[in-house]
C-alpha cells in the first residue's frame, strides 16, 4: 500500500517549532553519528525525510523521536546546518499532540493565548479552592516548637483530596494518551506483527528506563545523564510525597534534620534546583546543541518548575521560622503555580515525555523482540 505524500504536513508541524527542513540533502551523517540509533530504529534522517514528504502514517507510527535524548551530535555534525536534533524535538512535540485525544495539547503548543490562559485560569481556580479550604483563616498561634500551623490552615485531608483529583485527571489523560500512542505506534505499524508474549518479556524495559534513563548515558555529552536524572528523581520523589504521602509529609511538626521527611525533601529540592539551574543556564547561554533552540513551552516548563521549587523552599523556611502571613501567602502562590504546571505540562506538554519516552523504549523492545 502506498502512502500519500502531503505537502501541507510540514506547514502543520512547523507550528510546533520552526525547522530548516529544506536544507537536508540526506547524506546520513546524523544517523551515522547517533549513539542511540540501531538497525530497525533508524533516526534522525528517516524521520526527517518522512517529515519533508509529509508521510503522516510513518511519522505517527514511529517511536524513534522518543528514543532520542537530544545529545545534539547530529546537529553539530550536520554539514548543512539542518538541525536534525531539533527536528526530533519538534516531532516529539507534534507526536504529543497526536497522542492527545482532547486536542488541548495542540492548542497549548501552537497558541500562546491558550497556553497562558490555561495556566492563569487553573491558577486562579486553585487560589479559590485554597481559600475555600482555608476555613480557619490565618492562624497566628504558633506550634510548641515555634512553627506555623500550616496544616491547620490548609488541612492535609482537604489538600489531599485536591491532590488526588488532580492526579486522577492527569493520570487518566496520560494513560489514555499512552493507549493511543500504543495504538498508533505498535498496532498500526504494518511493518511488524507483535508477539503477545513480548509485552510481558519486555516489560522490564519500562521500569528500568523510567527509573534510570540509562540510555541517556550512551549520548556522549558529559554529565547530561547525571543532572537529568537528579532533576527527574527529585521531581518524581517530590510528586510522590505531596500526592501519595501528603499526611506524612505535610505536618505542623518541625522534624529534625536527620528524619526522612527532611532528608528526602532536601534531596528532592536539591535535585530539582541542580537540574533546573543547569538547564536554565544552558538554554540562556545556548551553550550546547540541545539548548540552541528554546520553544516557549521549554521556557515555561523550566520557569514554572523553578518558581514552584523556590516557593516550596520559602514555605518551608517561613513555616519553621514561625512567619505566619508569609507562610500563608507563599503556600497559596506555591500551589497556584504547581497545579497549573502539573495539569498542563504533564499530560499535554513537555513533561509528558517522562511517560512517553520509557513507553517508547518499551514498545521498541516489543517490536524488536517480535521481529526476531
Amino acid at each position, binding site marked *: *500500500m*502506498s*502512502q*500519500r*505524500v502531503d*505537502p*501541507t504536513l*510540514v*506547514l502543520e508541524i512547523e507550528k510546533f517549532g520552526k525547522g530548516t527542513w*529544506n*536544507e537536508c540533502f*540526506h547524506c546520513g551523517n546524523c544517523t551515522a553519528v547517533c549513539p542511540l540509533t540501531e538497525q530497525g530504529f533508524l533516526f534522525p534522517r*528517516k524521520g526527517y*525525510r*518522512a517529515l*519533508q*514528504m*509529509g*508521510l503522516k502514517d*510513518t511519522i505517527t507510527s514511529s517511536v524513534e523521536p522518543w528514543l532520542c535524548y537530544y545529545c545534539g551530535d547530529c546537529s553539530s555534525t550536520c554539514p548543512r546546518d539542518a538541525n536534525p536534533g531539533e527536528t526530533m524535538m519538534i516531532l516529539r512535540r507534534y507526536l504529543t499532540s497526536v497522542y492527545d485525544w482532547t486536542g488541548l495539547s495542540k492548542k497549548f503548543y501552537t497558541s500562546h493565548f491558550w497556553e497562558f490562559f490555561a495556566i492563569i485560569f487553573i491558577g486562579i481556580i486553585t487560589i479559590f479552592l485554597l481559600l475555600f479550604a482555608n476555613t480557619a483563616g490565618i492562624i497566628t498561634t504558633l506550634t510548641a516548637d515555634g512553627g506555623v500551623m500550616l496544616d491547620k490552615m490548609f488541612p492535609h485531608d482537604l489538600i489531599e483530596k485536591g491532590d488526588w483529583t488532580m492526579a486522577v485527571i492527569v493520570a487518566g489523560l496520560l494513560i489514555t494518551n499512552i493507549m493511543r500512542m500504543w495504538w498508533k505506534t505498535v498496532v498500526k505499524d504494518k511493518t511488524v506483527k507483535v508477539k503477545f508474549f513480548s509485552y510481558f518479556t519486555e516489560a522490564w524495559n519500562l521500569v528500568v528506563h523510567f527509573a534510570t534513563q540509562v540510555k541517556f548515558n550512551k549520548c556522549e555529552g558529559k554529565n547530561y545523564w547525571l543532572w537529568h536524572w537528579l532533576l527527574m528523581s527529585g521531581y518524581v520523589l517530590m510528586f510522590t510525597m505531596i500526592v501519595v504521602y501528603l499526611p506524612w509529609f505535610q505536618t505542623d511538626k518541625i522534624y529534625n534534620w536527620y528524619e526522612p521527611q527532611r532528608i528526602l525533601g532536601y534531596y528532592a529540592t536539591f535535585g530539582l534546583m541542580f537540574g533546573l539551574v543547569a538547564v536554565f543556564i544552558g538554554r540562556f547561554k545556548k551553550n550546547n546543541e540541545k539548548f540552541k533552540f528554546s520553544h516557549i513551552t521549554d521556557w515555561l516548563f523550566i520557569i514554572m518548575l523553578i518558581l514552584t521549587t523556590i516557593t516550596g523552599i520559602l514555605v518551608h523556611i517561613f513555616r519553621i521560622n514561625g512567619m505566619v502571613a508569609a507562610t500563608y501567602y507563599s503556600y497559596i502562590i506555591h500551589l497556584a503555580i504547581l497545579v497549573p504546571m502539573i495539569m498542563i505540562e504533564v499530560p499535554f506538554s513537555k513533561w509528558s515525555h517522562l511517560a512517553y519516552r520509557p513507553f517508547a523504549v518499551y514498545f521498541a523492545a516489543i517490536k524488536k523482540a517480535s521481529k526476531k
Partner: protein
Amino acid sequence: MEKPRIGVYVCWCGTNIAKMVDVEAVADEIGRLPNVVISKNYKYMCSDPGQDLIVKDIKEHQLNRVVVSACSPRIHELTFRKALEKAGLNPYLFEMANIREQDSWVHTDRAEATKKAKSLVAAAVNRVNFHEPLDARTVDINPSTLIIGGGIAGMTAALEIANAGKTVYLVEKSKDLGGNAAKLDLTFPYLTSAQQLMKPLIKSVKSNKNIILFLGTEVKEIFGYIGNFETTVKDEGKDTKLNFGNIIVATGLRPSNAAKIANYGYGKIPDVITSLEFEEMLNKGKIAKKDGSEPKNVAIIHCVGSRNKDYHEYCSRTCCLTALKYANQLRAALPTTNIYELYADMRAMGKGCEELYAATSRQHVMFMMFDQQNDLPKIKQAKGKDYSMLIELNEKLSGEAIEVPADMVILMNGMEAHENAKEIAHAVGISMCGNSFYIEKHPKLDPVATTTNGVYIVGGCQGPKDIPDSVSQARAAAARIMGIMAKGSVTVEVTTACVNEDICCGCQTCIKVCPYTAISFNDEKKVSVVNEILCKGCGTCGSACPTGAIRSRHFTDQQIISQIEGLMSMSLSLEMQLEQQEV
C-alpha cells in the same frame, strides 16, 4: 637519389629514458648501421641546445636524414621538423622513434628495455632511408561563411562574423529565426526573459546587411574543401549558388518523444504535458489544465527519456534547471498550489545553478527521488479532490512506496538530435556519435572544430547544452574562422594519398571506403582521383586498393616494410650477439 647520410640522436629525457635504457649503448649500436653518419646521445633533445645540435650536425656532416629517438611524436615531432627546416632540410626527411612511452616508461628490465630501444631506433633508421621530401601546400580562403541553423548559436556566430565585415549565408530550415530558445519564457538560473534576449538578436540578424538569410531552406549537398566550398540553395523558388570558405553547423536539437515512456501516459492522460507545452502556457501567461481551471497539484517529472538504456543514455543537461525554473514560476503564479519535483539525480552544475536549486527548495516544493534505471514512477488516472492522477513511485531517500496526487504533470523530456542529423553530417562531411550528435575534433582541446577542415559545430547539434555554452561555442567558432580569414590562406595536409592512374583499374573500392569523401571518379579516364585538400592521409584507401595503385605519401609500402625489416633485423642480430656471448 643522393646517398642517405643519417644523423641519429638518442634522448635521455632527463632520467625518464636514461634510467631504464642504456642510451649510450643504443647510440653506439645504431652508429654501426649503414648510412648512419653520426649517432649521439643527449640529455634533452627537445631543449634549444638539443635542437641546435641537430642544426649544427646537419651543416657540418651534410646530413640529409635525421632520426630522434625520444618521446611520442605527438609531443615533439613538429619541434624537430622545424629544426630540420631551420637547417635547410625538408622536414619530412625526419623520423622519430618513441623509446619513452613505448619503452622506458612501461618496462622494468633495463637490459630488455635497451634491446627494445635498439630495435625501435633501427626501425626508424631503416625507414628514414626511404623518406621523400614533401612540400606543404596552401589554399586561399573565400571570406564568406555558411551557417546552417538560425537558432541562438547560429545567429550569434552570424552576427560575430558579419560585424567584422564578412558575408554570412544563414540558412534556416523553418520560417522563423530563433530556434528552441525563442520558444522559452524565462531562462535559468536568473529567471530572466528569453524574449528579451531573442527579439533584439533576431532583429539585428535580419537588419544586418552582411547576413544573407535563407528562411525555410535546407542545405542538401556541399562540394569543395576548406576555403572553397560551394552549394546550391533554393531561394524563393530559384536555385542560388553560394561560394564560401568555412561552414558552421548550428542545427541544434529537438525534444524527444515523451509518448515512448509508457509509464507516463503522455498522449493518453489529458493533463500530462511536456516541458515545451508548459513553456507555451507560460508564454501565454496562463497556467491551466485542459478544462481551463488552475491546477492544485503540479508534479514535474525529470529525466523523461534521458539517462536510461531504453531511451537515451546521456543526460540532457538543461532539464533539471528548467524544472527548477518551472517550480519558481509555478510558485509565483499559484501561491497555494502544491508543487512536486520527481527527480532521478539533481544536476545543478554551472554558475548560479546550485543557488537556484537551494532557493527553489525554500519555496515549499517537495522533492522526491526515484530510480531512473529500474523503477520509473507510474502515472495512474484517479478521481479525488484536487487531483486527477496518482503517481506511484518508490521514493529512494525515504525507502517508502508513495503516491503523489496530481492534476497536472509536466514531463521534462530530454533533447535529442534532429531526424535529419545524418543528412547534414553527410552534406558537410563530418561524423556523428552513437547518439547522432556531431563529433568535435578534440573533446577538450578543440571542441568546436571537426576533423573536416573548415567545418565547425556549435550549440545543441554537438550535444545538449544551455544558452551560455551555445553562445560561447558560436563566438569561438566565429573567432576561429575570422582568424583563418585574416591569414587569407591555410596550409593543408601533405601526407595524402595519390593514385597511379596507370595501375588503377577503376573498381571504385577506394571511393566507398573513404571516410572523408575525398575520392571521386574520373569518368573519362575511368580512374579514381583524390582531392588532396579533403584527404586526411588516413591510408584506408591505400590498404583497400586491390591493385596497389594508391600510394599514401609518407606511408608508402616501401617505407613501412623497411621499418619492419629494421625492427626485425636488429632484434635478430641482438639475439645472435647474445648467443655468441653465451657460447
